[in-house]
C-alpha cells in the first residue's frame, strides 16, 4: 500500500446511522413497492404493517440524524458549492476511464466532494423530508378531515410519495455503484464499515509541504 495512507473518516455513529438507513431504505422500497402492486412478496397486509413500522422507525432515525447534524456541526459538510463541481463531473465522465486521480481529496473535515454535497443536501433537505411528509399524510389519511386537511387528494399524495420513492431508488442504484469507484471495488464500502478510508498519500505530502512553507 505504498502511496496511500489511512484516515479515520466515519465515526461510529455515522456508520451505524448509514447502515440502518440503508437497511430501512431497502425494506421500505420493497414493502412500499409491494403495497403499490409492483410484486407480491409478504402479502399486502404484512407489507403495509411493515411499511408503517419501518416508516416510523425511519422518522426516529432521521430525528437522531438531524440532532447529530447540528450538535456536531457536521451540517457544514452539506453546504453546496460549485467549486470543482465540474471537475468532479468531468472526472466521472472521462477521467476515471484514463486512470486519473479524483480531483477532490477526502478529508475528515471535507468528506464529500461537491457533487456529493449537492446530492446529499438534495436528499436530506428535500427528497427525504417530502417523502416523510407524504408518507405521514398517506398513513393518516383517515384523520385528514378532522385535521382540516380535507382538501388534500390521496391520489396526489400517493403520486408524490411514489415519485420520491422512484427518485430514492435511482439514487440508491447510482450510490451503490459509486461505492465501487474507489481505488479497489470494495474500498469505499469497507471504509463505511471500519471508519478508516485509504486516501492517496500525496494529499498528506501537500499538507506537509504547506507546513514546511510556513
Amino acid at each position, binding site marked *: 500500500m505504498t502511496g496511500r495512507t489511512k484516515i479515520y473518516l466515519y465515526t461510529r455513529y455515522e456508520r451505524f446511522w448509514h*447502515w440502518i438507513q440503508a437497511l430501512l431504505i431497502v425494506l421500505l422500497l420493497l414493502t412500499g413497492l409491494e*403495497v403499490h402492486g409492483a410484486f407480491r412478496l409478504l402479502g399486502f397486509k404484512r407489507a403495509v*404493517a411493515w411499511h408503517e413500522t419501518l416508516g416510523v422507525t425511519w422518522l426516529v432515525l432521521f430525528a437522531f440524524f438531524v440532532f447529530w447534524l447540528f450538535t456536531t456541526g457536521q451540517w457544514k459538510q452539506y453546504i453546496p458549492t460549485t467549486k470543482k463541481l465540474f471537475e468532479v463531473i468531468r472526472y466521472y465522465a472521462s477521467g*476515471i476511464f484514463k*486512470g486519473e486521480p479524483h480531483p477532490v481529496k477526502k478529508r475528515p473535515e471535507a468528506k464529500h466532494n461537491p457533487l456529493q454535497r449537492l446530492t446529499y443536501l438534495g436528499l436530506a433537505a428535500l427528497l427525504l423530508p417530502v417523502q416523510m411528509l407524504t408518507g405521514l399524510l398517506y398513513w393518516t389519511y*383517515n384523520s385528514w378531515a378532522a385535521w382540516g386537511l380535507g382538501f388534500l387528494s390521496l391520489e396526489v399524495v400517493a*403520486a408524490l410519495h411514489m415519485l420520491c420513492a422512484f427518485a430514492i431508488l435511482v439514487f440508491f*442504484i447510482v450510490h451503490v455503484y459509486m461505492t465501487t469507484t474507489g481505488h479497489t471495488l470494495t474500498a469505499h464500502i469497507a471504509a463505511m464499515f*471500519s471508519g478508516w478510508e485509504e486516501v492517496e498519500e500525496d494529499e498528506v505530502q501537500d499538507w506537509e509541504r504547506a507546513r514546511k512553507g510556513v
Partner: protein
Amino acid sequence: MFSAIRPALLLLALLAVSWPAPPALAQVPAAPATDEAQGRVMARQATKERQLWITADHSKHEALKQPFTSGPEVTKACLSCHNQAALQFHKTIHWTWLDPSEPPDRKVGKGGLTVNNFCVALASNEPRCTSCHAGYGWKDKNFDFTDPAKVDCLVCHEHTGTYKKFPTMAGNPASEPTVFPEDKQEYLPPDWNAVAQSVGRPERSNCGACHFYGGGGDAVKHGDLDSSMTNPTKALDVHMGSKESGGQNFDCARCHTTKLHNIAGRIYSTPAAKDRKSLVQDDLAPKIMCESCHTATPHKSAKMNDHTDRVACQSCHIPEFARVIPTKMRWDWSTAGKMKDGKPFKTDGPLGKPSYDTKKGDFTWEKDVVPEYYWFNGSITNVTAKDKIDPSKPVRLAWPRGERSDPNARIMPFKVHRGKTPYDTVNRTMLVPHLFGKDDAAYWKSYDWATALKAGMEYVNLPFSGQFDFVETEYVYPTTHMVAPKDKALACEQCHARTGRLANLAGFYMPGRDRVTALDWLGWLGVIGSVAGVGLHGLARAFSRRNHKEDKS
C-alpha cells in the same frame, strides 16, 4: 473492521428488540385476560346468553282449547288476551307490504306496484304470492287490511313446525289434505289446537318459512338467505351457526330486534338503521347492524379499523354467498312458453336446478357466488309499473343508493339478479303480467303474453299500448347474512390489487389498485435508465483499466 461494527450491531439489536413489532405481529392485550380484537369482546359482552322467561303456558289457556276450523278463529282467540297485537301488526311492513317512507301514491312495495325480475308483480296473482303474507285471504285487491281476524299469528309464532300455508290459497292452510301439483307435496290441514298452544317467540323456521323461499322456491331470491340457514354451521354463519360447530346459535330476532311488532331491517328505500350507533352509545338501539355490537373499531389493527367508515363489514366478511344451496342469478322470461309435444315442460340444468320451465323461461343458478360491490347508504331505489324506463340499457328495478361523495355511503356486497322482463315498448313502462289464475287470460293457463299483460295492467288500472318486448333488468339484494369465520374473510389483496373485487368502483384512489400510469412509466424508466447507465459506466471502466494495463505492459 468487524470489531468496529460490533457496537453498531448491538445498537441495531437494541432497536429491534425495543421497537414495537408491526401491528400484524404485535401481541398487545386488548382487554384484560384476552388478546381478542375489541370488536369481538364488545359483541360478546353485548350478547351474553339470554335467560328468556315467560309467565304464561299457552297450552293451559282455555281460549286455545276450543275447537278451531280456520285461522281467523285462532287469531280471535289470541286477540282475546293480546288485544293490541293486531292493531300493532296492521301498521307494519309484514302486513302492508308497502314502504312506509315512500309517498303512498307511488305504491312502493310488493303490495303496491313495485316490479321485480322474478315473478314480476303481485297484482292479479295474489292467491299464489300471498301464501307468504302473514294474513288470511289476500286473494285480490279487495282484501280488507283493517280486519284484525285476518292477521295470521301462527305463521310467525307457532313452534310445532307443522303449520303450512298452502302455496296457492291466499295465505290459508289447506282445509283438507291437498297435493300441490308443482312439487307433488301433500299439504295437511293444521292441528289447530296443537299449533295454537305451541306459540312463542319467532324462531328461524318461522321467519325462514317465507324469507328462505322467496321467489317461489328455496334460495331463489336473496342468495344469503335459504334453508341452509335453518341449522347452519359456524362455517356458513358465525352468528347463527350451532354451538357444536362453534357458532353463537342466534335466531333471526337476536339481531332483527322488534318494537311493537316492527321488526328491525331494511324496507326498500327505508334503511335498516338511521344512525350508525353501537349499544354503548344507545342501549335501546336496534341490534340490526354489525356495529351495534361490534362497534366501529372492531379490529386489532388501526389500519383495518380505518376501513369501517367507508367499507361495510359485509364486504370483507362475506366472501361468497349461496355457499350451500345454489341461488338463481338469471331469469329470462322472453323464452317462456315453448312446448314439447304440445305440453309445457321443464329441463334439468346443472347444480340440480331447472334450467328451463315453459311457465317461466330460462334460468341460471350459481353456487359460491362472489358478490358485486356498490356504494350503498342503506337505501334501495325501486321501479314501479308507473315509472318511465329507458330500455336502451339494463333497467335497474332495484338498485343501491349512494355514491363515494355521500358520507353515509359505504361499499357493500350485493347479489345482482339479472333477467329479461316484459315492458311496454310504446309507453316505456314495466308491465304487470297476470300469471296465476284459472281464467284464460292467465299466462300460466294460456301462455299468451299479450292477453296476460293486458289483464295484468287492467287490474292495476295502468295504461298498456298492446306493444311489448322484453328488456334486460337488474335487481339487487344486499348480502348481509352468511358471515364467514374470520379466517375466511377477504385478504387485503382481493381488493387492493390491479384487478381485484373493487376494480369497477371509481372515484377514489385505492393503494395497490390505482396508480398514475405516466408516473409509474417515468419512474421505472428512470430506474432502468440508471441501472443501464451505471452498467455501461462500469463496463467502460473495466475495459479502460484493461487497456491501461496492456499499455503499461
